């Protein structure tokens, strides 16, 4: 049982304010057992990635014969090198894959957000027939595994020549991301105060103007939350890219290219580590820089659902 078991003296005077109590919680109750437990989990969750990072800067002789930690323990006798990165970016398909990932991920983030923002506004503030039914269907689709879509869509794609095209994968990611996008944005947009719309309409604004001039600017936090979700999802996606975009070097995205290195050069540890890090660097930057928005989206999307 990892849960704290130490007892708190009930004779302690009750603290006057919340802040005081919080402070004391933070310092007094965290016994060494708790700290060790936290430290162990933090280590377990960071060491795998750290190992990959360290190995990506070691020469191939080292990474295939000794553990990554030997270089950390003896940093001055290790020949730290950038050649693995130079190697994967210049000779393999990683550079092209990086560009392809950008081509896929940016429109595949913006298109569903745009469609979803319009739809969320429609569902929240316009009255029309079938509104409840349509929204219910959308929410039901939140959990449908995308495997259900693969075979019929593949047949359509092969019939129309969309396989292996960027437009095809933009649309596919749009379709798969839309239910969550509409759901998250609806949650935000439906909570906007009604007065702002009334005064805008009195001033002669059309719903379209109200949407672009009022709703969009006010919804930026929600839009940002979903944008991060969708961007990370698309960037990290393997299955949709594998089925609809394929593995040819002109269109292959990073996870596809990385998986093919695993398959063909799985023993070339030095290249594999550098390639893996190339594929992870942009999502990690996005994630660390915009963590606040990401967490907000996560909470509004899951606690409400």
């Amino acid at each position, binding site marked *: 049982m990892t849960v704290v078991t130490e007892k708190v003296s009930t004779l302690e005077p009750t603290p006057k304010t919340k802040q005081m109590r919080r402070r004391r919680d933070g310092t007094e109750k965290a016994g060494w057992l708790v700290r060790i437990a936290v430290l162990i989990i933090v280590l377990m969750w960071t060491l795998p990635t750290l190992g990959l990072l360290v190995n990506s800067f070691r020469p191939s002789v080292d990474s295939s014969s000794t553990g990554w930690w030997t270089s950390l323990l003896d940093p001055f006798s290790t020949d730290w090198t950038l050649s693995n990165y130079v190697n994967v970016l210049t000779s393999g398909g990683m550079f092209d894959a990086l560009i392809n990932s950008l081509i896929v991920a940016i429109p595949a983030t913006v298109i569903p957000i745009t469609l979803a923002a319009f739809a969320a506004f429609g569902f929240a503030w316009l009255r029309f027939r079938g509104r409840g039914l349509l929204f219910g269907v959308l929410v039901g689709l939140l959990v449908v595994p995308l495997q259900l879509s693969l075979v019929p869509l593949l047949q359509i794609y092969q019939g129309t020549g969309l396989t292996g095209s960027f437009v095809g994968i933009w649309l596919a990611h749009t379709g798969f991301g839309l239910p969550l996008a509409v759901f998250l944005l609806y949650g935000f947009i439906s909570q906007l105060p009604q007065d702002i719309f009334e005064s805008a309409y009195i001033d002669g604004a059309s719903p379209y103007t109200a949407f672009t001039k009022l709703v969009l600017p006010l919804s930026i936090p929600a839009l940002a939350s979903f944008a991060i979700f969708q961007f990370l999802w698309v960037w990290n996606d393997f299955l949709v890219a594998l089925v609809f975009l394929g593995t040819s070097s002109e269109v292959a995205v990073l996870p596809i290219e990385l998986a093919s290195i695993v398959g063909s050069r799985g023993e070339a540890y030095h290249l594999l580590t550098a390639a893996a890090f190339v594929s992870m660097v942009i999502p990690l930057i996005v994630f660390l820089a915009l963590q606040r928005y990401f967490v907000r989206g996560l909470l509004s999307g*899951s606690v409400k659902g």
Partner: protein
Amino acid sequence: MNRAVQATTSNERWASITRAVVVSVITVAALWLGLQFLSQDTVLEGLPPNASKLVQALIAIVLGVAGIWALFYAGNTMLESFPAKVRDALRPYLFVLPAVAVVGLYLIYPTVGTIVTSVTDVPEGESFFYNYADAFTDPEVLLNLRNNTIWLLIAPAASVFIGLGFAALVDRIRLESLAKSFVFMPLAISFVGAAVIWQFVYAWKPPGQPQIGTLNAFWVGAGEILVGMGILTEIEPIPWLQVIPVNTLALIAIMVWLQVGFAMVVLSAAIKGVPTEMTEAARIDGASERQIFFKITIPSIRGALLVVYTTIAIAVLKVFDLIYVTTGGNLDTSVVAVRMYQEMFRFRNFGAATTMAVILLVAVIPIMIINIRSLRRQGIGA
């Protein structure tokens, strides 16, 4: 207030119709030309390969991003040229229909199509249930189902357990947000990336050689200490991804590693949302921290626990990349989603592939019902 609108002269009407037509034609033409341009490799031939790739990327991105806005703008210009009554009746659909249409094409139609294919794509003269009968009597499919069940039993529960434990513990630590960031970080990593990361955790070298995998280094190191103390007679490194019952567990561990951050963040927020008056009152009444946690905190965050559990359960059911990239589904690690992919591409057996997909759908239906119900309770969409 609508007098101005009613007073629209026919001149103005014609002007707005003309504008609508012009805007729509320009938008569609620009998009079409852009797409044509994008699909021709020869246009950028003069440039060095990397530069042409970057130019192509830029065009593609601008096209995708600006195109969708241009379409909505054109749609609205068109709408504004209609008589007021028609315009107001159609307006909601301008907002809602594009999204609904895409969802219909990409989720609703294929889901129905998948179900239909699974019963109609059968050999001549066989019954509708041929694919299902075939699946449930195939020992390999049964093995996949067994593996999915193992994943479903272990991964969501383990993620919730560790996430909850960590959220509760870290609440008392001063470097809380830093510690959380570390555990949270794997959420930004792809399954393929995680598979590579964990190759270096599970890497195996023959006994006697220095172990380069983190786990085997620990395993052998700890084992040698025990051997030194005379508790064990020998210790051997384990090829974690090759030994049969262990490899599925090793893969599940990667999934848990990826999902705990999600569980932790949601549950941590839920724990902080438990009213302090309640815990404080219990504390004054002499309840121990353990009692407070189990009798007050846990029941108060039941909703969040359910959501986290079901969300991870869905992710686990669909698991594909992780297994496909690490073991390729060999060595008894395959699951339904991997099997489906193989039926689709290796065997071109769409009947069997869709049957696998329908099995996944049946598994998520209970969760779907829970979702829609909780939505009804909140009064959305009613």
